């Protein structure tokens, strides 16, 4: 399944990169559309704020465009666009953290329900939505590197080799960031979900009793 998805993606990337090499301004819209969900999803996990994630993603695509203006055809065709874009995004995000360290922190809005991407079953059960909200909140509690690693591997779905490239570390290190992040999530998750389910159950009972 993964290989099949990856093959399809590579064919698409090749087509999009050829379009960029042909006419940058003309091809760039398709390139943005193909990668905006990955970039925005990861930006949202890192910034924890939809408006900031939008700014960060737009800035990422602008920086990428500016870099592409200086690239020759061969260099464009050799790009691995997803990991390249995500590396730009993470770099911009780290720089913005450094710049913002003296400014007041923004309030995380991890509890705001996210608009789900196209292609995912819109008729999710209430339970799924709850899980997503809960995970979104828990993910936000992870240390930055683990959060980035888990997001790249399991939200965006990058192969572990590309996660390592984006994080700029060896593959083994990337793997351990991911697994430590997942372990932490499992630990944080179980008691919280139990509480959610219990309170949902109680609310149902109260409703039932009154009607």
């Amino acid at each position, binding site marked *: *399944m993964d290989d099949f998805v990856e093959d399809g993606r590579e064919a698409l990337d090749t087509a999009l990169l050829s379009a960029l090499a042909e006419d940058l301004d003309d091809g760039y819209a398709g390139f943005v559309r193909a990668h*905006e969900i990955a970039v925005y*999803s990861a930006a949202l996990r890192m910034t924890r704020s939809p408006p900031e994630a*939008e700014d960060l993603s737009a800035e990422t695509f602008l920086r990428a465009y500016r870099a592409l203006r200086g690239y020759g055809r061969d260099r464009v065709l050799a790009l691995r666009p997803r990991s390249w874009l995500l590396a730009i995004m993470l770099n911009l995000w780290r720089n913005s953290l450094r710049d913002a360290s003296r400014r007041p922190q923004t309030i995380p809005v991890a509890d705001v329900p*996210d608009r789900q991407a196209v292609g995912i079953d819109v008729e999710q059960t209430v339970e799924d939505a709850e899980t997503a909200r809960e995970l979104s909140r828990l993910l936000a509690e992870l240390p930055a590197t683990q959060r980035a690693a888990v997001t790249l591997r399991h939200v965006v779905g990058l192969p572990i080799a590309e996660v390592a490239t984006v994080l700029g570390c060896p593959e083994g290190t990337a793997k351990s960031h991911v697994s430590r992040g997942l372990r932490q999530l499992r630990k944080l*998750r179980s008691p919280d979900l139990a509480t959610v389910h219990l309170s949902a159950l109680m609310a149902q009972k109260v409703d039932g009793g009154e009607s």
Partner: protein
Amino acid sequence: VTRSNGRDPLLHGLATLTTQPPRELADLVYANWLSVPSPAGQLRVAFTSLGISYVRLEGNMSAFQRDYGDRFQRPLRPSTGRPPAGLLPTLRGRPVKSLQLDLRELTPFEVSVLQVVRRIPRRQVRPLRWVIGELRANGEASDSTDDTAVLEVLAENPFPLIVPCHRVITSQEPLGDYVLGPGLKERLLRAEDVNLDEIRALAANNVFFLGSNTTHIVCLPSCAHARQITRPHRRHFSSIREAEEAGYRGCRHCRPTMVESA
């Protein structure tokens, strides 16, 4: 455990966290261009999600694209929608204040100059030294700010007609350079019915300010109020200091006291 293994609820949950951006990101990254009519001729106008970013006479498209690319480093595409709200009336000479400009790629000094010039009303002109005086009054010019610094900004004005730099005149004849071409400047001012001939005749006699001896208010010669002073009541001044010494105060509309003595 592989990623596609839906049986691990945690991995399944994480995979559902992919999120569509609220707006198409391409709309935030691209600038759009369209062609619109103006008194200066057909214009090509580029605009981003923040507002108008570049205006030039319609000429060679690839030259426009190259200039835009070099200056703004942003992808450009033909607009498929309507012109930004307020653009057409502004170009027809009825400026719409809410017309947004994208000022991101400009320096703070450039923004200050353009904001001062944007307020010069139709049918009027301002001397270059008035622009510098306004900047200094706003604390946006240093002691070293000179004619050249302001002229350089105007020569590269990204928003001609919207920021009416053709209404800034220098002491040189004919009228100083203009970003869309020198001959065009005089044509635009005449089309707006600026009293150019009168201003020139007065300047030839070293007169740069007009006062009314009934109101004791002094104006720049193109000010709507100055043009209402009847001949018998009109007083001529060569400097604002001369007018003030005669007991005149500056008009609050054209602000002649902003003109710096060179």
